[in-house]
């Protein structure tokens, strides 16, 4: 390290030189001081002597002294005052360069006492005739704000800055925007950058003429604007598109952000929409030929863009092929995007590349490449076979880490395509001995257990693992336990000894509670009811989904609004990591507005709620396994009390048993634990069951927006009965799918009771009897409060209306979407399954009116992450009528305030499970659009 201390002799020498009469000597001395300063030496002791040199007409000397001042004024505030007069004088200098330099330097002296003296010169400079001075002064406002925000507001500098947005000089406009953006960051709620069509026009004009850096600021600012309609958004897009050809990659990416965001509003059938899509590809590809650091940032952003609009780059697969001397961080990102772009059309190319990568030197990269082959198999169904054979080729190379990685992904392929590729198991088993990583061992054991009936020596294989049971990692131990139990259930005769051995190892010799508990559960299951055990342990597993690695759609939408920023590099919303951004607003993509169709559209609220439902890729796996889950539903008469009925899958089964009495068996005061019955099961369990109340508030946010939107959709009002909003009946189960039984229905809340109103129609030729209904676990614990009352048999072509009261005390499990309800209906013919979505409003309870005081306190308490906002379009009610109408649906108005012609209604809602939602509804007289600005959720 360097020596940071300048010895006393050197300081003394410099002091003498600084006070010399000769100009030249003085300047040389100041240069020496600066040089020492730049390498981090402390020369602050020379402060008075250097400041003395400031009164000079030599520009270089002046600049050098300014440099020094900026660095040390903070540590010598009293001395810094000495320099003030010179600054004030310099601000009056006839030379604009000196005026600008003075105001610029003053702003950099971060001493409170100086700021008072700064105000007057700054005010003058902001109105200076020379644009160079004005633009420097604009930045100075931001500097001053950083030191003393209150002063800036009191002095009215913010308004002056806002005026500069309409300055005639583009450079001044750009700097004013930059300064305002920076100030706005620490003032999230101030409307500093309140954009209107006029100011947008000014910005777009300035965009063409200002420097590249100014263009970045202006584009980032434009991205925050919400265009009024698709026409405005198209005209902005048209004027921003030329920026895609800029040499500065930051300008390009900011332009991409604006386009990606405003594109959302354009109708998809518009010609221009297609043109725009085509224009976006080349600049993104060009970013990839830049330096690796730029490439990295570009790739992280392309990753988002590809998820949102895969069509843009679908033909550009080749540019993501990895060069062997790319830095590792570029390689890994490219690989990720290659998988995202993989499709049936290009899979052959991709696989050939991935296979090539698997022979590279870098171990991390090789592992990821092998994993990528597995992901391709899961993503592109037609290519699965090819992927498997590629993986087998790689296993033949016998390179240790390649083999292990391949086995881990083959396990996933088995989960996706069960009973299809078992022929490869033999090859896998050959490599059993070389596996030394827990994940690979666990995967192999899972495979052996899962396909135990087809592996002749499965017992020997598992036994060999059992020898070193205590040295294995938990992951392997748990897997081994489950695998041996599976083996036992499949081949009970030969493996009794083995299963006893593993159970005693797990329960008696282990001090890992997870392992011990799982051991006990199996033990008890096996000893009490082997048939149930078989059903639980060997239950059909839900298929793994191809899209599990996608970013969740609402987060993706927010990240698209942050293209080019740190958030886009980390793939996290800014609120999650940017320091001091308590009030960062959640950005949403604008809603697509059709011209003139919005009046009738019943689901405007839903769209305005933020999720472009038709484009958002669904994370829910296919319907098939939801039904699979339901398959084991017990159709006994519903019980509203007592333990939840034993439902599907081993995970649930395990849970029940534990609740039933295992904790007494465990004999310790430990709370019941969650047991992962299968690979990856633990995580799903944790989220799905144990943590439900805690998980909900956050996840409620998104779908609630839609639900509430529906309810707030007060439009029309004609023919709507007084009382709570009841959506019209829809067909839930078409006759085609249910052997002639058609069910349509809706939900209503009448006199505090939730009713499921069903219309059953018999479209078959025979009479239907013995109706029963059962629900799967759901987000709000809905369950039938009584049996389905269909007294008389339903003869062909007969229709009956049934109303089923519901309770909210049933078992709880988080669903996707949140308000999804899976229902099973039984009759004398068969059992039928369907799922429907209930309006969230029927869960609003009658005692949802919050005390004013409590409301106020709660409002403040709720963290900002829980906030969202949306608009309700075309609603022709005044605030009182709206309030009455909403009250009918148990949305209570707590307070009303009128500000500048706007009525603000503050409302509270309580859900049946005790979650409160607070909202602010803003109604502008004469404006048919309502804004629900805040919507906060918390549990009481």
């Amino acid at each position, binding site marked *: 390290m360097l020596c940071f201390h300048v010895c006393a002799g050197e300081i003394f020498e410099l002091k003498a030189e600084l006070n010399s009469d000769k100009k030249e000597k003085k300047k040389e001395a100041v240069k020496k001081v*600066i*040089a020492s300063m*730049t390498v*981090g030496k402390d020369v602050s002791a020379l402060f008075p002597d250097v400041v003395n040199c400031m009164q000079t007409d030599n520009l*270089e000397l002046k*600049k*050098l002294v300014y*440099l020094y001042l900026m*660095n040390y004024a903070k540590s010598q505030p009293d001395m810094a005052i000495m320099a003030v007069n010179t600054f004030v004088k310099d601000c009056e200098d006839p*030379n604009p360069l000196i005026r600008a330099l003075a105001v610029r330097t003053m*702003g*950099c002296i*971060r001493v409170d006492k100086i700021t008072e003296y700064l105000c007057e010169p700054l005010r003058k400079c902001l109105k200076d005739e*020379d*644009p*160079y001075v004005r633009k420097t002064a604009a*930045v100075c406002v*931001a*500097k001053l704000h950083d030191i003393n925000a209150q002063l800036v507001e009191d002095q009215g500098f913010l308004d002056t800055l806002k005026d500069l947005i309409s300055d005639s000089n583009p*450079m001044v406009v750009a700097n004013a925007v*930059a300064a305002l953006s920076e100030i706005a960051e620490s003032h999230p709620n101030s409307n500093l950058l309140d954009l209107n069509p006029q100011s947008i026009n000014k910005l777009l004009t300035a965009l063409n*003429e200002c*420097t*590249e*850096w100014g263009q*970045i600021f202006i584009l*980032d600012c434009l991205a925050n604007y919400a265009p009024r309609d698709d026409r405005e958004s198209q005209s902005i897009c048209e004027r921003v598109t*030329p920026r895609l*050809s800029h*040499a*500065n*990659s*930051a300008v390009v990416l900011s332009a991409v952000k604006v386009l990606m965001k405003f594109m959302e509003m354009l109708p998809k059938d518009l010609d221009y929409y297609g043109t725009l899509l085509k224009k976006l590809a*080349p600049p993104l*590809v*060009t970013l990839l030929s830049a330096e*690796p*650091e*730029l490439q*990295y*940032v*570009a790739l992280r952003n392309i990753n988002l863009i590809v998820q949102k609009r895969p069509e843009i780059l679908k033909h*550009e697969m080749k*540019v993501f*092929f990895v*060069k*062997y001397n790319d*830095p*590792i961080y570029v390689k890994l990102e490219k690989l990720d995007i290659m998988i995202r772009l993989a499709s049936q059309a290009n899979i052959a190319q991709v696989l050939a*590349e991935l296979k*090539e990568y698997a*022979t590279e*030197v870098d171990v991390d990269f090789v592992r990821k490449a092998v994993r990528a082959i597995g992901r391709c198999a899961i993503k592109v169904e037609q290519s699965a076979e090819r992927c498997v054979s590629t993986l087998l080729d790689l296993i033949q190379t016998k390179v240790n880490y390649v083999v292990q990685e391949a086995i881990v992904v083959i396990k996933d392929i088995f989960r996706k395509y069960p009973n299809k590729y078992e022929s490869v198991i033999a090859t896998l088993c050959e490599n059993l001995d070389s596996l030394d990583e827990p994940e690979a061992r666990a995967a192999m054991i899972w495979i052996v257990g899962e396909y135990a009936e087809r592996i002749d020596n499965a017992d020997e294989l598992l036994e060999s693992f059992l020898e070193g049971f205590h040295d294995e990692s938990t992951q392997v131990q748990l897997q081994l336990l489950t695998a041996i139990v599976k083996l036992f259930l499949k081949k009970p005769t030969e493996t009794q000894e083995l299963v006893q051995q593993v159970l005693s190892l797990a329960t008696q010799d282990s001090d890992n509670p997870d392992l011990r508990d799982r051991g006990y559960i199996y033990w008890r299951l096996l000893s009490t009811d082997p048939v149930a055990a078989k059903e639980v342990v060997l239950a059909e597993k839900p298929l793994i989904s191809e899209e599990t690695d996608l970013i969740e759609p609402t987060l993706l939408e927010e990240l698209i609004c942050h293209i*080019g920023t*740190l*958030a886009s*590099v980390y793939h996290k919303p*800014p609120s999650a990591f*940017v320091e001091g*951004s308590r009030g960062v607003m959640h950005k949403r993509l604008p809603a697509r507005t059709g011209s003139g169709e919005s009046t009738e559209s019943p689901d405007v609220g839903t769209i305005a709620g933020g999720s472009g439902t038709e484009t958002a890729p669904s994370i829910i796996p296919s319907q098939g396994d939801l039904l699979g889950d339901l398959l084991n539903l017990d159709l006994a008469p519903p019980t509203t009390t007592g333990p939840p009925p034993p439902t599907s899958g081993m995970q649930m089964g395990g849970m029940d048993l534990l609740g039933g009495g295992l904790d007494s068996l465990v004999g310790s005061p430990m709370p019941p634990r969650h047991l992962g019955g299968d690979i990856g099961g633990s995580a799903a369990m944790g989220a799905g069951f144990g943590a439900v109340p805690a998980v909900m508030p956050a996840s409620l946010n998104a779908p609630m927006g839609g639900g509430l939107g529906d309810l707030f959709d007060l439009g029309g009002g004609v023919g709507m009965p007084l009382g709570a909003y009841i959506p019209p009946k829809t067909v839930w189960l078409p006759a085609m799918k249910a052997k002639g039984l058609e069910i349509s229905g809706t939900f209503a809340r009448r006199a505090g009771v939730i009713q499921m109103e069903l219309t059953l129609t018999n479209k078959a030729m025979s009479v239907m009897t013995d109706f029963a209904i059962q629900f799967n676990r759901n987000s709000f614990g809905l369950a039938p409060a009584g049996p389905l009352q269909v007294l008389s048999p339903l003869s062909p072509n007969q229709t009956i209306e049934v109303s089923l009261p519901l309770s909210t005390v049933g078992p709880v499990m988080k669903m996707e979407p949140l308000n999804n309800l899976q229902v099973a209906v039984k009759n004398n013919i068969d059992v039928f399954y369907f799922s429907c979505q209930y309006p969230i409003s029927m869960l609003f309870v009658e005692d949802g009116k919050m005390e004013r005081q409590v409301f106020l306190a709660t409002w403040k308490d709720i963290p900002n992450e829980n906030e969202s906002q949306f608009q309700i379009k075309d609603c022709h009610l005044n605030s009182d009528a709206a309030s009455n109408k909403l009250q009918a649906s148990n949305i209570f108005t707590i307070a009303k305030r009128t500000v500048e012609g706007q009525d603000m209604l503050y409302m509270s809602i309580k859900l049946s499970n005790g979650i409160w939602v607070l909202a602010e509804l803003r109604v502008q007289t004469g404006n048919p659009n309502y804004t629900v600005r805040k919507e906060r959720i918390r549990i009481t």
Partner: protein
Amino acid sequence: MIHSLFLVNSSGDIFLEKHWKSVVSRSVCDYFFEAQERASEPENVPPVIPTPHHYLISVLRHRIYFVAVIQSEVPPLFVIEFLHRVVDTFQDYFGVCTEAAIKDNVVVVYELLEEMLDNGFPLATESNILKELIKPPTILRTVVNTITGSTNVGEQLPTGQLSVVPWRRTGVKYTNNEAYFDVVEEIDAIIDKSGSTITAEIQGVIDACVKLTGMPDLTLSFMNPRLLDDVSFHPCVRFKRWEAERILSFIPPDGNFRLLSYHVSSQNLVAIPVYVKHNITFREGSSQGRFELTLGPKQTMGKGVEAVLVNSQLPRGVLNTNLNPSQGTYTFDPVTKLLTWDVGKINPQKLPSLKGSMSLQAGASKPDENPTINIQFKIQQSALSGLKVNRLDMYGEKYKPFKGIKYMTKAGKFQVRT
């Protein structure tokens, strides 16, 4: 915005720091050093590193890390682009961008950084303007300065900053008026084992050196502008005119600048100018391996391929090589295992080859990985994409300038897998 800048050399010492807002302690760089230690190669240090209170965004150029410190949400590309501009400016001022050059000119460096950024906002980054503000050090000027006592800092207001053409200063005068354009294309390609092209693309640039008096207005037109569908322009180019007529119309900056860069994508067919025949084999159980390499010209439009340089990272198991080049010289570094063959010019009549054997570690199993061959070459007077300039016209000034256009093709990342 950008808070501070630290320059770090390859041995991990901070040799310069600059703060545009309050001082950030240099201990923040410890997070960078940690990442540097973890990285296997210097270029593998991730460009964005989070720390508890700051973000470090770095670029590696000329074996110096330029580490920018930011505190709030700032577009990382903005920071990286700015850092590149800093590097370019240093190179422009000092000829080279090395630790020694920066240390020798530390005061100028400091003055430059101060002019380039104000409170974290870029101020003057155009080399034209900077040179007006701070004159680059030259030996002559240093001598003159010491005698006359004059300074490096210009006395004038940087006029360019105020005009509509901020990239050009006013009052430029030359006795010889000249405008030269270089069309330089780099071909990036990956060729697979069997010699077929996996991907190939061309990155092209038109660099200009314009020394013209006054305020000339130039137009440049192409024979085949349709090739240019993916272009990035210098801000001086009038985009509207390009959109409408496919003509480049601009008032040029003074001196050297990059007029445009373009990209001919992999979807167009790209001609591959050289081919490689290779046979690199290791046999199981033998401590010898074969190495054979032959180069030849492919689609070069009759132009010669010169300055050919081949290098390849051989597997770690290779102890030494015993090769025989038909022309040029070859070296093998037994420590880094890097094989370099300086071929020179390819003679189509007598193709250059490099043949011989490699000795492997005795008893070791045969290496898993296949070496990739990296090739560099140049082809003069030809742009691989076929781009041709039609004519260059000047308006706005009366004199007749000298005009010149040069074409060149180079290998960029040209890799052959074996």
